[in-house]
C-alpha cells in the first residue's frame, strides 16, 4: 500500500531537501559549514552564526536506510577501523573516503567547524579527532559537558559550561564566520525552539490515547527529524510540529491507530516502551515485526536523544547561554542511570505500557552501558514483562532477522499469556 502523505510529511521533506540543497551550494554561497552531533546539538547557536549544520550520525543512518552503509563500513575497515568501532563512525568515515556524497546524492561540503557539544559519548571525541585529520583546516570546538552523575544539573555545572561558551565556543565561531555574536538573534531562535519543544512534548503525549494514534519509536524517529537536524529554533519547525500535532489529534478524534508502511494499524494489541536506538539497515523489517503483532510503541528513549522535554525542561531566552548549557546536559544519554529508569518508568506508567523492550546495540556504548541493569530494575519495580534483543545501528551484518524474530515472538506470547491470566484472575 502507498504510504499516506500528510502535510507534515511534505513540510519535513521540504526542510530536509532544502538543507541538503543549501549544503550542496555552500561553496558558491560562501556559507560556513558546521559538523556536529545530535545529542546536545546547539542548533540555535549554529543559526545565530548563520552556519549550515551537518550531522554525521544522521548521514550514517540515512545511508543505512538507503542500503549504502555496508559499502561505507567496508571502506572504513579497509582503512584499519576495527570491527568493534561504532558503526556510525565507520559508515561516516567510509562515506567521506568515497567522496563525501550524502544520502541524497549531493556532495557534502567540507567542515569549517567541528563542533562537539556532548562528551558523554567518548566515541564522538575520537570521531572528530579522526575528522580533524581528514580536514586539517577545520576549526575544532569541543565543549566538555558534565554528566549528571548526581542526578541533577547544579548551578556550578551550568556556570562551568557557560564559561566554555564565552571563552571558547563563541570566539571561535566569530573567528570562522566573521559574524559578531548577536544575543538578540540567539534569543529569537531560543523562543522558537521553546515553541517547537512545547509541540513535540504534546505530540509524544498523544500516545496516552487508546489506541495510540502514533508509534512513538518507528514513526517517532521521523518526527524528531526536524528538531534534531538543525531546524529547532526556526519558524519552519514550529509550523511542522503544529501541523503534525493537528494531524495526530485528528486521528485521535477518529479513534485511529498509527500509520505503518503498510497502512493503518488495525488492532492495537500491545503497548510497549522501547529503550535503545532502532536498527537502521533493516528498519522496515524491524518495524514490521512489531506492527504485524499489533504492537505499538507508546514511548521510546531514542526519541529523547536530542533532548528530554517530558519533564518540562525548555529553552529559555531570558538565560540564553545557561539555557544552551542545560540543553547539552539534559540529553537522554547524559542522564544518570537512575534518572533514566525513573523517566522510563514514568512513560510505562503514564502511557499504560504492557511491556518493555531493550534493543541493545552492539557498538553503542552510550546506550548499551547500564541497559541490562535498567531493565532489571524496571522489571522489579513495575512487574512488567521485559524483552531483550540485540542488533546494530548501521552494520547489516549484525541484524539477525531470525534471532530477533524468535525473541520477539516469545516476548509477544509472554504478553499474550499474561493478559489471559490477568483476565481470568479479575473475572
Amino acid at each position, binding site marked *: 500500500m502507498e504510504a499516506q502523505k500528510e502535510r507534515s510529511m511534505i513540510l519535513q521533506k521540504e526542510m530536509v531537501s532544502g538543507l541538503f540543497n543549501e549544503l550542496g551550494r555552500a561553496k558558491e554561497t560562501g556559507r560556513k559549514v558546521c559538523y556536529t552531533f545530535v545529542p546536545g546539538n546547539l542548533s540555535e547557536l549554529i543559526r545565530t552564526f548563520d552556519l549550515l549544520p551537518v550531522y554525521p550520525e544522521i548521514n550514517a543512518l540515512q545511508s543505512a536506510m538507503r542500503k549504502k552503509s555496508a559499502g561505507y563500513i567496508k571502506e572504513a575497515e579497509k582503512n584499519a577501523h576495527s570491527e568493534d568501532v561504532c558503526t556510525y563512525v565507520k559508515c561516516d568515515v567510509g562515506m567521506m573516503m568515497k567522496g563525501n556524497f550524502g544520502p541524497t546524492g549531493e556532495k557534502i561540503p567540507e567542515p569549517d567547524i567541528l563542533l562537539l557539544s556532548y562528551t558523554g559519548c567518548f566515541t564522538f571525541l575520537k570521531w572528530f579527532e579522526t575528522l580533524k585529520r581528514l580536514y586539517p583546516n577545520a576549526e575544532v570546538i569541543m565543549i566538555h559537558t558534565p554528566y549528571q552523575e548526581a542526578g541533577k544539573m547544579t548551578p556550578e555545572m551550568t556556570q562551568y559550561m557557560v564559561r566554555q561558551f564565552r571563552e571558547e565556543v563563541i570566539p571561535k565561531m566569530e573567528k570562522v564566520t566573521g559574524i559578531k555574536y548577536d544575543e538578540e538573534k540567539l534569543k529569537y531562535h531560543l523562543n522558537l525552539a521553546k515553541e517547537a519543544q512545547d509541540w513535540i512534548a504534546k505530540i509524544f503525549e498523544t500516545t496516552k490515547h487508546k489506541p495510540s494514534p502514533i508509534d512513538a519509536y518507528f514513526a517517532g524517529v521521523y518526527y524528531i527529524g526536524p528538531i534534531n537536524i538543525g531546524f529547532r529554533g526556526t519558524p519552519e519547525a514550529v509550523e511542522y510540529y503544529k501541523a503534525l500535532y493537528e494531524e495526530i489529534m485528528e486521528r485521535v478524534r477518529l479513534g485511529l491507530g498509527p500509520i505503518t508502511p503498510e497502512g493503518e494499524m488495525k488492532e492495537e494489541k500491545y503497548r510497549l516502551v522501547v529503550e535503545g536506538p532502532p536498527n537502521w539497515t533493516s528498519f522496515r523489517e524491524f518495524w514490521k515485526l512489531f506492527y504485524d503483532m499489533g504492537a505499538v510503541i507508546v514511548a521510546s528513549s531514542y526519541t529523547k536523544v536530542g533532548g528530554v522535554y517530558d519533564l518540562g525542561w525548555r529553552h529559555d531566552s531570558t538565560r540564553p547561554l545557561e539555557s544552551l548549557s542545560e540543553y547539552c546536559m539534559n540529553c537522554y544519554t547524559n542522564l544518570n542511570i537512575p534518572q533514566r529508569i525513573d523517566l522510563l518508568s514514568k512513560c510505562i506508567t503514564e502511557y499504560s505500557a504492557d511491556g518493555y523492550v531493550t534493543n541493545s546495540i552492539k557498538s553503542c556504548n552510550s546506550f548499551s552501558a547500564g541497559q541490562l541493569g535498567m531493565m532489571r530494575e524496571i522489571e522489579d519495580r513495575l512487574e512488567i514483562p521485559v524483552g531483550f534483543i540485540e542488533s546494530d545501528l548501521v552494520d547489516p551484518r549484525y541484524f539477525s532477522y531470525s534471532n530477533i524474530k524468535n525473541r520477539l515472538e516469545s516476548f509477544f*506470547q509472554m504478553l499474550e499469556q499474561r493478559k489471559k491470566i490477568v483476565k481470568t484472575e479479575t473475572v
Partner: protein
Amino acid sequence: MNKYYLGIDLGSTTSKAVIIDENDQIIGRGITNTRANYKVAADIAREEAIYDARFTLLSNIIKTDMEAKPEFKKYMEDIRTVFQYQQFKRRMEILEEKLVKTSEAFPYPNKNEIIDRLKSILNVIRPQIRHEFVHGGLGSKNQFFRDIVSERYNLEVAKAGKEFYEPLMLAFDKSITPVENEMVQYNFKELILESMKVLEEKYKGLADEQEDGSKEDWYYAELNAVRNNYKNVELSLREHFELVAEQEIHIANMVGTGYGRALLPFPEECIKSEILCHAFGAHAVFPNTRTVLDIGGQDTKAIQVDSHGLVTSFHMNDRCAAGCGRYLGYIADEFGISLNELGPEAMSATKETTICSTCTVFAGAEVKELIHNGEERPNILAGLHKAIVQRAMSLIARSGGVKNEFTFTGGVARNQAVLKYVKQMVTESYGEVTMNIHTDSIFMGALGGAMFARRNVTAALPA
C-alpha cells in the same frame, strides 16, 4: 470420550512429543532424532507418544496386578523394549534393502564383493541388535535408529579391510538419510502380538539356560517370577490390549514448539515459543520454580518465571553455538566418540583443563593443541563441559540470576558432567538453592506445549 492434548517440541537435535490427559498428567512420550524432513520427525515422535500412551493405558488397567505381582511389572518393562525392537526391525528391513540397492548402483569393479561383504555385515549386526533389544533393554536407552545401526555397522566396516571401507561407508551414508526420512506405518496390535511371541521365546530360553546350569545374572526375583508366570501375564494382557489398541487417543488440541516450529504443519495459533513452553513445563512439574535453564541443541535459554509459570524475562545465546548442545556434538566429533560417552568420560577427569574459547570452532583448535601437549582426554572434556556451563551461567546472570527454585531442562541436562558443573556453579553464585532436574527434562518443552494446548481449548469452550 477422554480428551488428550499433544505437545511437540521440534528441536534441532531431537524431536519430542508429549501427550497429557485432562489433569495435565503425562500419559505418553515420544522422542526421535530430528532429520531433514521435519514433518516425519514430528510424526514419528507423535506416533511414539501415542504407543507410549497406549502402554500407559494398559498399565493403568492392570495397575493392581502390576503393583502386587513382580512378573507383571517385569513383563511390561520387557514388552516395551521388545515393542521398540519390532519397530526398529521394520525400518531395518527397509534400510537393508536400500543398502543393497545403493551398492548395486556402484560403479566399483568389485561391486559384487562389496555386496557380499555388506550382506555378511548385516547378518552379523542384525542378531546382535535383536539380542541387545530383547535381553539388554536397548529400547529403554533412548538411542535412535541411526545411532543404533551406525554404531554397529561402523564397527564391522572397520574390520572389513581397507578396500571395502569407502564403498561401505558411502553406501550407508547414501541410504540412511532417505530411510530415516520415510514414514513407516506400524500396527500397534500386530507389533504387540509379535512382541509377545518374542518374549515367550525369551522366557522359555531363560528356563532352558537355567537347566544348563549357566549362572546368568537374570536370576533374580522378578525375572524368576516372570519366567514361571509369564503365561498368566500374557493371558491377562490379551484380555485388555485389544481394547487399548482400538481405543481412539483423541487429541483435542495440540501445540508445536521448538526451533523448527514454524515448519510444522500446524495452524498459527498452535505454534508457541519454546521459551514459554519450557518454562510452563518446568513450572508444572516444579511449581516453585522461578528460574529455568534450558540447554538445547541449538540454543541455551535462561528464563525467569512467575508464580503462574509465565515468563517474565529470558536471555538466549546469540551468534555462537558455544555453550549449547551443538558444541558438545562438535567436540564428540573432534574426539571421534559418541555424544553419550562425553559426560561419563569428563566425570573421570582428575582436573579441568582451562578452555577459554567462546567459539565452537576455535575450541576445536584449542583442543587439538591440548592433545598435542599431552593433556589427558577426560581433563580436556571436563574443561569443555565447564566452559559450556560458564556460558550458561552468564546468561542466567543476564536474565536476572537465580531467584528461587532452579530447574534445569533440555537434552543436555542428561549429561552428568554438565549437571555437575551446573550444580557447582549455581551454588557458588547463588548459594544453596533447590535445584530440580527431572528424568523427563528433555520433554519439558513438549510438556509445556501440551499444557498450553489444553488451556487454549478450555479458554475457547463456553463455561
